[in-house]
């Protein structure tokens, strides 16, 4: 089973990278939009492989089901753009590309530097892994004194199986409506303001 998952991972990764390259190289704007949707879909597949089902489905729901459609709809409404900008580049290509590459290297480097690679495996004991596999989370402190959510309460080690993870959706939902409810509400208000603002902008003005 592990070998199969590796194969699927490589297919998904290759798909994500190839379609992402197509987005910036294909001349037709609509084809680029479709490639973008394909890229989003591949990333969603990778999330599935990582057992992050909720994130995977949210990725499909939001990116494939909404953002790609808005992009495609914008192309439909601006039909003249359909044939695309013949070069997909301009004078500042090198500058922009350089800035983005530098930012990417900076972020990737920071993550690589900040992650405690050597300590990571040793900190996870067998029982922690068992807790993660069976979903018996509880708030507690780990060995270095930080508050963490992964712990266990009376985990039966035999009930854990490889590749079977707990209900992450319920856990995320709990975080969202309990711990981070203020941020959620603020986002809702922000979206409402954006909708009302856009309606106000496009509303027909009463003729003087």
């Amino acid at each position, binding site marked *: 089973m592990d070998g199969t998952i590796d194969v699927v991972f490589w297919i998904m990764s290759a798909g994500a990278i190839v379609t992402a390259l197509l987005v910036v190289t294909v001349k037709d704007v609509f084809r680029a939009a479709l490639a973008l949707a394909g890229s989003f879909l591949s990333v969603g597949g990778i999330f599935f492989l990582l057992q992050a089902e909720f994130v995977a489905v949210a990725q499909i729901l939001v990116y494939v089901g909404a953002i790609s459609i808005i992009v495609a709809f914008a192309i439909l409404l601006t039909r003249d753009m359909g044939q695309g900008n013949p070069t997909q580049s301009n004078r500042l290509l090198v500058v922009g590309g350089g800035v983005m590459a530098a930012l990417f290297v900076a972020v990737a480097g920071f993550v690589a530097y900040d992650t405690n690679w050597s300590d990571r495996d040793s900190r996870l004991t067998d029982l922690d892994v068992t807790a993660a596999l069976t979903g018996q989370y509880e708030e507690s402190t780990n060995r270095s004194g930080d508050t963490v959510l992964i712990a266990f309460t009376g985990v039966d080690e035999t009930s854990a199986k490889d590749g079977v993870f707990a209900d992450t*959706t319920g856990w995320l939902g709990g975080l969202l409506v309990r711990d981070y409810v203020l941020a959620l509400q603020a986002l809702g208000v922000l979206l409402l303001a954006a909708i009302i603002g856009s309606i106000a902008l496009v509303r027909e003005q009463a003729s003087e």
Partner: protein
Amino acid sequence: MPDPFDSILYRYVYCTLSSTGDAECAGHGLFGGGLLPGGLEWLAFPLTAAIIVAALINGILGGVLMMIWGERRLLGRFQGRTGPNRWGPFGLLTPIADAVKTMFKEDVVPTVSDRLVFTLAPIMMLAPALLIYAVLPIGAGTWLADINVALLLIIAVGGANVLAILAASLGSGNRYAMFSAMRAVAMLISYEIPLVISLIGVLMLSGSLSLVAIVDAQTIPFFIVQPLGFFVFLVASMAELNRTPFDVAEAESEIVAGYMTDYSSMKFGLFFLSEFAATIATSGVITAVFLGGWHGFDPIPSQFWFVAKMVAVLTVIVWIRASWPRLRIDQIMNFAWKALFELTLINLVVSGLLVLAWPSPSTAELWYMAGINWVVFLVSIYIFGRVLGPKHDSVRAGNIQSGVVLSDSDAPAIPAGGGD
């Protein structure tokens, strides 16, 4: 998340191929299990997947053929004619003849079209429809994947067909297709909101997004407990499926066949197939979420109950198609935003309060909830009917004269035994 061996479908096929599934395989699998020779047992997992997918796709194709026949026969009945009856007993072989005819037609690709996108669109339409079956439990233990976000996955992939419609219309470069895409996108995006919110009531009752858990939670079918949610979900799914009261995207009297205008041969066949596959999948979702899934009386196997309930839902869907005329796009949008959206919000608030009063309800408490919900359902439908009824449709109000009825002699003669 339960493990894959909970699915008897998976366990049976896997254990037939490989005996390394150890304790879980004891007593399962054909021919004593372990058919794969030693050294090749890593093939068991991909082979299991391939076998199940092949069986499933063939099952879906058979189901679609049966549904095409059933729908045409039923429509014939509803319209006072016979329906297809020439080829095979009761015309049962007609869909096969249709399929063969479709495949052998000339495959025309318009010169102004974007050939790649034009070809890709039918595939993009079919894939999400098939994906829904991956999480559909068609009987006790008979499912492919029991993931804990199954319902969300169904909603997510159900929304992806908008992209296929956009691709079809932009790919074929046809003005009618363009109109169709505009209508389809406007409609599908509007109806997705009530569709999603109407399910939240069920989620609060079952406490899970997994279809298996939702079926398990239904000691009484949820359409009794959640009448408003059921009604809104049924209507919104009809819109999502582009079926008749809401089929403005392919209104043949206005825009030829909409986004399918330029398609012929098997590309058109794929659109047709995906439409019917999606209809069957949706009836399966309605069965699992609202009609108690595979629950039934004991001597009859659970799979039969599920299929029987699905057929009942499909019959209702065909019935609706036979009974309602096509709505105009402005009526459709008004209905989505002024009626269904508010109804789902009412359902959400009422269900939330009820779940707050009875957390993890027993069967008796579910009946109390059902009583309250039915009162809310009838009252709110009555109020919305009064507020948004035909008198308030501004276009219709001045135009329709009452009592214009065709006399019998005006109706065209019905030919005996024709097709539809």
